[in-house]
């Protein structure tokens, strides 16, 4: 029996719309749940005072520092390396079997579970190289983790720059590096920044790999060889061990807001950049 297409369409819209509402609803619930339980605990005092009594009291300042420093170190190492590698692979080399293998390998490494990087970091940096649980071990491990993603997204961004731009630049007599510096990189910048932001986001949210390499010290790190705790790790420990439900939610709320702010800033920067160029 044939149903009139108008009715199947109405049915489809209802089902799809319902599914969408369910999806958005669940995702909204998660954010609202955490913010509702956590925001009351957040205050300037909470953000700026040190944890006391293992996190039962006091604020989360040292973990805030940890959350800033670890991803920062990771980006400082991974961004230049990643962007250079991607630029070199796309602009300075021909498409050979080797470059295709490298690309495939990078893609795979981008998908490898982070716990494996954590395992690597724990055995290699913490134990074998003797760096111990430290910002250095954690930062380097995170750098390795986000490097493949940065290489891959930068490559996509660079490749997306139209060939004609390069041809025009060369025909005007520019060298390859001049073309890269003045034509390709600026045009690919939004995509490159997306990759870097993805890396930052991943580093901030990473927990398992960080605990095993940077440790979980609550003290303010005074050197790169000191252990530190990030907010994600702090939330995990507080919540799992039932140390302080209030502070746990407060940490989670701060974490979510921080991630939101970073992403929004990235979008805003990219939009401004695109607007300026067009």
């Amino acid at each position, binding site marked *: 029996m044939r149903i009139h297409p108008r009715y199947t369409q109405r049915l489809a819209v209802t089902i799809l719309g319902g599914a969408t509402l369910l999806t958005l609803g669940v995702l909204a619930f998660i954010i609202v749940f955490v913010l509702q339980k956590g925001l009351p605990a957040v205050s300037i005092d909470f953000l700026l005072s040190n944890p006391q009594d293992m996190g039962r009291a006091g604020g989360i300042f040292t973990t805030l520092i940890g959350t800033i420093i670890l991803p920062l170190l990771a980006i*400082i190492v991974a961004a230049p390396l990643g962007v250079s590698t991607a630029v070199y692979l796309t602009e300075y080399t021909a498409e050979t079997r080797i470059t295709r293998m490298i690309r495939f390998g990078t893609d795979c490494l981008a998908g490898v579970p982070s716990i494996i990087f954590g395992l690597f970091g724990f055995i290699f940096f913490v134990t074998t190289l003797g760096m111990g649980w430290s910002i250095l071990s954690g930062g380097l491990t995170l750098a390795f983790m986000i490097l493949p993603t940065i290489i891959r997204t930068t490559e996509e961004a660079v490749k997306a720059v139209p060939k004609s731009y390069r041809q025009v630049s060369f025909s005007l007599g520019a060298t390859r590096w001049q073309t890269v510096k003045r034509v390709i990189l600026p045009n690919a910048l939004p995509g490159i920044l997306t990759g870097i932001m993805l890396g930052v986001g991943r580093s901030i949210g990473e927990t398992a790999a960080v605990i095993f390499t940077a440790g979980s010290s609550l003290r303010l790190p005074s050197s790169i060889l*000191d252990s530190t705790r990030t907010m994600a790790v702090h939330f995990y420990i507080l919540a799992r061990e039932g*140390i302080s439900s209030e502070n746990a939610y407060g940490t989670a709320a701060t974490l979510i807001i921080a991630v939101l702010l970073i992403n929004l800033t990235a979008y805003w920067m990219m939009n401004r950049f695109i607007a300026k160029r067009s």
Partner: protein
Amino acid sequence: MIVLLSIFVIASLMGGCGKSKTSITLAGSTAFQPFAEKLAEQYMSTHANVSITVQGGGSAVGVQTAISGAAQIGMADLVVLPEEAKQLTPTIVARDGIALVLNPANKVINLTMQQVREVFNGKIKNWKEVGGADSPITVVSREAGSGTRSSFEQIVTEISLTKDALIQDSNGTIRETVANDPNAIGYLSHGLLNDKIKAIKIDGQECTTELITTGSYKLVRPIYLLVKGTPQGEVQNFIDYILSADGQQTIKANGLIPAK
């Protein structure tokens, strides 16, 4: 600009590299970890030249990191130290009872050692078999590297943990899991008991400081601090502090039992 800022941050951090602060890392037993952290806080308030960090991971991590050097002091709450610990110098700094805990909603208040054995082996699967409600028992245990688990299994003997057991990675997490599940049973350090869960009697013996000290409550184990070679300098000083009247007082006040 961002590059300059980052270089500045990193440089100031690296500046800490040549300072005169001694750095001590403790790692291992999650049962002793909260106490180690408290003791470290107290010690550092009077000794500004020492920086002490405490990591967890379980007693096996304590043994291994003491051997590998990742930690200066390994914490282990084991009844019997393993083979590889022979190269380490052990110091007993406290004793601790292992409490068998239930959700407060659970009506059971006592189990015999044999019942404990059979619950954890999976032979007894329902609370009604031991006098409780008609619901399946959820066994919660630690991972294999846990000192609490090794000690528990060694004292109770003949335990081959049921495959259905949930595994959690620290004393605190077991406490939370049992607190949230009316059918759960788990074990954790006596020093970590609070009112979210309740400890039951074993063979009629309650898990209290007195009965642990006298030995009537059988699930007891020592807490070792392990150091590679002979402890020296600040490491020895910190260990001495823990064994001092002040340190032992902190240990007693928070639910552990003094070493002597």
